[in-house]
């Protein structure tokens, strides 16, 4: 029943998309500067249908309608209602459905919100959006149908992977997809802009909100995934350079580059084609990320799909998109003569783009390189944290320094009349680093440089803030995002260098001592829960310096459906540091393997990222106000 409703609605939406394209072309040939009312009606109808079909799927998950394959494979009656709902997008088919609903709603919103733009530009954007919608609908209907049925109807579902049953992971995909899919708007707009010669400042006005919106959501989405990895995987880290994590970074880097070069296009009417290229890169890298995750070509913790036909579909979709836009771009590109002054804000923004592209290419290469070596030479390699750390971190030092000086540079021609200031800020940051190093702990040369350069950025941003308040052109979003980025790098650096990690085996009643800590394994309990059994250990962690006792209770959870064992970390967070304990059983013995970690400044890492994206949201708000 639900299956036929869903399928019918999806089919209807496909037809409506075709009608939208047809009506759009008809509308293009008509005179007048208004988009016909029909088009609005059809679009809102299409939007409604997709929303209803999405909620049909959600409803099927809520009532546990196991006649649907997706529900049967990914849900279970004993699951809490919250995870039944979030389970909707916790699988391949459902997550594509989520992608589709956001894509459709965004297209509609673009149509409605772009009233004062040129008609041809709006209509072409709409046409391209609908081509994308059709591609996704066809993929959903013929390859990954969320409404596929299973007969006879099973009595019980297979259940959702327990590590995915988590609040952070429930909101992670929607946030991330707002970023991914938001980029589709400026991809379509870029193509439409090339087709209709709607360029320069007008083009910036049309897409700026969308870039800010998608960038801010993407940032928060990556954070949610990272927080999930931190407390759910039980490894104590928050970033593993896992292929799937990397996939979420590709569009983030090109979005960040785009965000900055848009300013040049807006203020100086330069870099138009570069902006177009970045628009295209952002969306194609979003789709490429989806391809890498969904096709199962990558070996990763997160990959829950493994079906080559999906990969081939997405890959051909991707190639058509890239080739199509490349040909169009080559046809339209003119060598416009942009000569910048070496010392000017324009150049500093280009430097930002330069580094962003470097990060993007490095991470992309690291992610796909193992696939190539395996296919071409049957040589299996792993590219992991050491590679990224070696290649990227030294470059980050220079990046941070440019990022500190850049924002205060002037357009067209800059002078370093604040040279003294820069030197005194540099000395301040060296002093900060020296104090940390001298009073607390020694660390490597590279860590020194990271801490110096991030302090440099933070102090420069504050200096920037004070100056701009005096000049009365206070750009709050830039200052928040830039200084928060400095704090992010600083706290990651400190966290990396001041973490304590100890692993040992203990029986109940035993004590382990190391450095200034004393850990006692006091108790072990068994508990029954709605959908799992738990073995809960109790540990007293005593900080001998401060005479401060904390009780941590890590768990081993035994899930029945599907039958899995998960290790739940116990985390005590406070302003300065996190205590993190995990425990695992050792076969045929009373001993448990305990892993204790002290992670300084974890909360501040999260807060920094929230502030970075807050900068984006604030800017969006200010931008809205300016339009009147």
């Amino acid at each position, binding site marked *: 029943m639900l299956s036929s409703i869903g399928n019918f609605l999806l089919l209807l939406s496909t037809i409506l998309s075709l009608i939208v394209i047809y009506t759009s072309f008809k509308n293009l040939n008509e005179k007048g500067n208004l988009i016909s009312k029909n088009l609005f009606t059809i679009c809102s109808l299409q939007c409604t249908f997709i929303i209803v079909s999405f909620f049909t799927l959600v409803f099927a998950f809520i009532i546990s309608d196991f006649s649907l394959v997706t529900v049967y494979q990914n849900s279970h009656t004993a699951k809490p209602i919250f995870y039944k709902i979030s389970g909707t997008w916790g699988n391949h088919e459902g997550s594509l459905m989520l992608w589709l609903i956001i894509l459709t709603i965004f297209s509609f919103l673009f149509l409605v919100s772009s009233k004062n733009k040129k008609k041809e530009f709006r209509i072409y954007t709409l046409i391209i959006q609908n081509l994308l919608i059709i591609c996704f609908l066809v993929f959903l209907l013929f390859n990954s149908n969320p409404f596929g049925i299973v007969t006879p109807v099973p009595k019980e579902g297979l259940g959702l992977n327990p590590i995915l049953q988590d609040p952070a992971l429930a909101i992670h995909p929607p946030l991330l997809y707002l970023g991914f899919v938001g980029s589709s708007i400026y991809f379509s707009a870029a193509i439409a802009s090339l087709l209709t010669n709607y360029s320069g400042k007008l083009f910036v006005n049309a897409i700026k909100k969308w870039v800010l919106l998608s960038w801010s959501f993407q940032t928060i989405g990556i954070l949610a995934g990272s927080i999930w990895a931190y407390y759910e995987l039980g*490894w104590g880290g928050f970033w593993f350079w896992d292929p799937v994590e990397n996939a979420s970074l590709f569009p983030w880097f090109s979005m960040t580059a785009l965000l900055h070069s848009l300013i040049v296009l807006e203020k100086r009417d330069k870099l138009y084609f570069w902006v177009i290229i970045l628009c295209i890169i952002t969306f194609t890298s979003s789709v490429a990320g989806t391809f890498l995750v969904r096709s199962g070509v990558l070996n990763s913790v997160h990959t829950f799909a493994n079906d080559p036909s999906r990969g081939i579909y997405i890959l051909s979709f991707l190639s058509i998109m890239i080739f199509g836009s490349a040909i169009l771009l080559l046809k339209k590109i003119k060598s416009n003569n942009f000569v910048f*002054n*070496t010392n000017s804000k324009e150049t500093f923004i280009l430097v930002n783009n330069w580094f962003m*592209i*470097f990060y993007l290419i490095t991470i992309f*290469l690291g992610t796909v390189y193992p696939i190539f070596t395996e296919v071409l030479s049957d040589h299996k390699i792993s590219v*992991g944290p050491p590679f990224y750390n070696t290649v990227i971190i030294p470059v980050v030092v220079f990046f941070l320094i440019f990022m500190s000086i850049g924002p205060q540079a002037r357009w067209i021609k800059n002078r370093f009349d604040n040279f003294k200031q820069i030197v005194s800020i540099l000395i301040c940051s060296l002093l900060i680093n020296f104090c940390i190093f001298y009073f607390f702990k020694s660390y490597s040369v590279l860590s020194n440089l990271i801490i110096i350069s991030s302090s440099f950025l933070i102090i420069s941003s504050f200096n920037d803030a004070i100056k701009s308040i005096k000049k009365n052109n206070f750009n709050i979003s830039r200052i928040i995002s830039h200084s928060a980025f400095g704090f992010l790098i600083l706290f990651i650096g400190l966290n990396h260098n001041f973490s304590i990690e100890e692993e040992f085996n203990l029986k109940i009643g035993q004590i382990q001592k190391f450095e200034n800590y004393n850990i006692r394994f006091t108790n072990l309990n068994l508990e029954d829960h709605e959908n799992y059994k738990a073995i809960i250990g109790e540990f007293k962690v005593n900080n001998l310096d401060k005479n401060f006792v904390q009780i941590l209770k890590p768990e081993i959870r035994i899930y029945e459906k599907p039958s899995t064992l998960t290790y739940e970390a116990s985390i005590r967070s406070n302003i300065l540091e996190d205590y993190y304990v995990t425990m695992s059983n050792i076969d045929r013995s009373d001993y448990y*393997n305990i892993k204790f970690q002290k992670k300084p400044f974890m909360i501040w890492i999260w807060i920094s990222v929230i502030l970075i994206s807050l900068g984006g949201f604030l800017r969006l708000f200010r931008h809205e106000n300016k339009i009147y």
Partner: protein
Amino acid sequence: MNKIKFIISIIFFLFVASNILAASINKNELFKNIRCLVCQGQSIADSNSDFARTVKLVINDQIKDGKTEKEIYKFLVEKYGEWIVYNPPLNKYNFILWFFPYFILIIGGFLIYILSKKKDSA
């Protein structure tokens, strides 16, 4: 001029002072760089599997025997192949991986240099 010399010497002093102490082998870092072959994208530091435990024991023994980090990696690669280390060794297969990013960095810098021709008189 003296002022500048003074500033430079302060900078130099602060930096050198921060770098006198050298670091020893960090076992946790080492474990994080080794893939658990029976797991899905986990390092042996993060895994509870028997395989991870065994490899950790072997490495602990080797550290006790006074082997260097390089020797331990070499031993593991010879035994299990390059798949086991997260740090791909620099050889003819991985040459592009290690050098292409820097190539892009240099090209990018060069492009910006050309685009931003000096126009001091302007």
